């Protein structure tokens, strides 16, 4: 066996190992997600302080609607931190948004005409992920304080919008009452 053949075999082995892991894990995760019953999805939702988040979301929408930004409209960062529950709270919102995307996909499986609503929910979830990723990067750069207020408020607003849209989507898709009630309680 010459050097080039040896190098080729090693390269293929490394490639096949990486690809194999990606593919098998991907297939296993995909199957697990598609076969998760509704109750399991509900159980995956972490508890959040929804009233605090709604208050923050309302404040954000008032601030965005107003053309003049004054001190009264700007919440102090410590207050935003408390209402959201800090970075841990934001991680929970990110986690819940992914569960909500899975729920929308689940409902869409049974009501395929509602694909644009499911897609809208997914895009809001991606927006939440984007905000939280920016804050994770800011935390790593020890710069969280200057970034937290704005991104956290937008995350809370997006989260509340997502929860509201999901409930509306499930109602429109004629999800059975018991399942809808479970979701309302969980959110």
């Amino acid at each position, binding site marked *: 066996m010459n050097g*080039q*053949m040896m*190098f*080729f*075999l090693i*390269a*293929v082995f490394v*490639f*096949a190992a990486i*690809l*194999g892991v*990606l*593919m098998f894990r*991907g*297939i296993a*995760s*995909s*199957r697990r*997600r*598609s*076969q998760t*019953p*509704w*109750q399991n999805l509900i159980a995956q939702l972490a508890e959040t302080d929804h009233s605090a988040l709604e208050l923050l979301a309302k404040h954000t929408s008032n601030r965005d609607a107003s053309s003049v930004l004054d001190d009264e409209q700007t919440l102090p960062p410590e207050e935003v931190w408390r209402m959201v529950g800090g970075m841990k709270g934001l991680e929970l919102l990110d986690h819940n948004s*992914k569960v909500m*995307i*899975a729920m929308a*996909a*689940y409902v869409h*499986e*049974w*009501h*395929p*005409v509602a*694909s*644009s609503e*499911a*897609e*809208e929910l*997914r*895009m809001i*979830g*991606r927006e939440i992920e984007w905000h939280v990723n920016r804050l994770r990067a800011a935390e790593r750069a020890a710069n969280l304080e200057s970034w937290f207020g704005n991104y956290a408020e937008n995350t809370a607003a997006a989260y509340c919008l997502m929860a509201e849209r999901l409930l509306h989507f499930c109602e429109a*898709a*004629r*999800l*059975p009452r*018991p*399942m809808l009630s479970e979701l309302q309680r969980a959110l």
Partner: protein
Amino acid sequence: MDLLFWAAGFAGHTLLFAVLFIRRRARHFPLFTAFVGSALIRTIALFEIQRHGTKADYFYSYWSLAVVDAVLQAAVVFEIAYHVFRPGGRWATDVRRDLTYWVAASILSAGVLTLLAAPSTSLAIQRVMIEGNFFTSVLMSELLAGMIFLSLKTGLPLRTHAARISEGFGLYSFVEVIIETAHTYFGLSHGDHAYVVLSHIRMAAYLVCLTFWIFILWMNVPVSMTGNGELDSQLRRIREIADRDLSVIEKRARR
């Protein structure tokens, strides 16, 4: 042995083709149906050419049809991506860039790995043959693995039948990478015994994939999603109503 594989392949493709039409999967997966149809035509054509034509006729027909087959495989990958990454009828905006990069990276890495391959062959055409097969199998497996990975990352789930087609293709392509690596290693300069044995293994793997597709495309969506019989029957009823409404809308749109 070759005759057995041919017969089994022909029977498998015929059955799969029938399933696609009987279970009405063909309208959702026209390119996959074309791929299966083309495989059927290819089997018949090559069988006749082998019986009545020369070795050269067979060789050039085989490799011309193999190119068509490779193009159709790429088309099937596109079709699955079309199903997964176009929720609401448009390509998801957050996926376009990632998909483009993945496709470009897949072509590049498949090309680099193929350049490293140096199968020992007696004729240049044999080298092209082995490297061509290797490139196609690496590219297909990368594209499918990338699609599965991206669908998880972006929260766009691979839906039932698209998921199963891509799983079958992905796993078969992965096996093909290993087989084509072995083809490259053994080459053709010392006879074709190893090449033939490895080809038989590849055909056997493909027959397993074919059987998987026949079974899974015959089946409907998984029965229980809630673990609750009453809720499942309500959801099934909702789905029947939605499917019926959708077909009425589609008929009106066609008029």
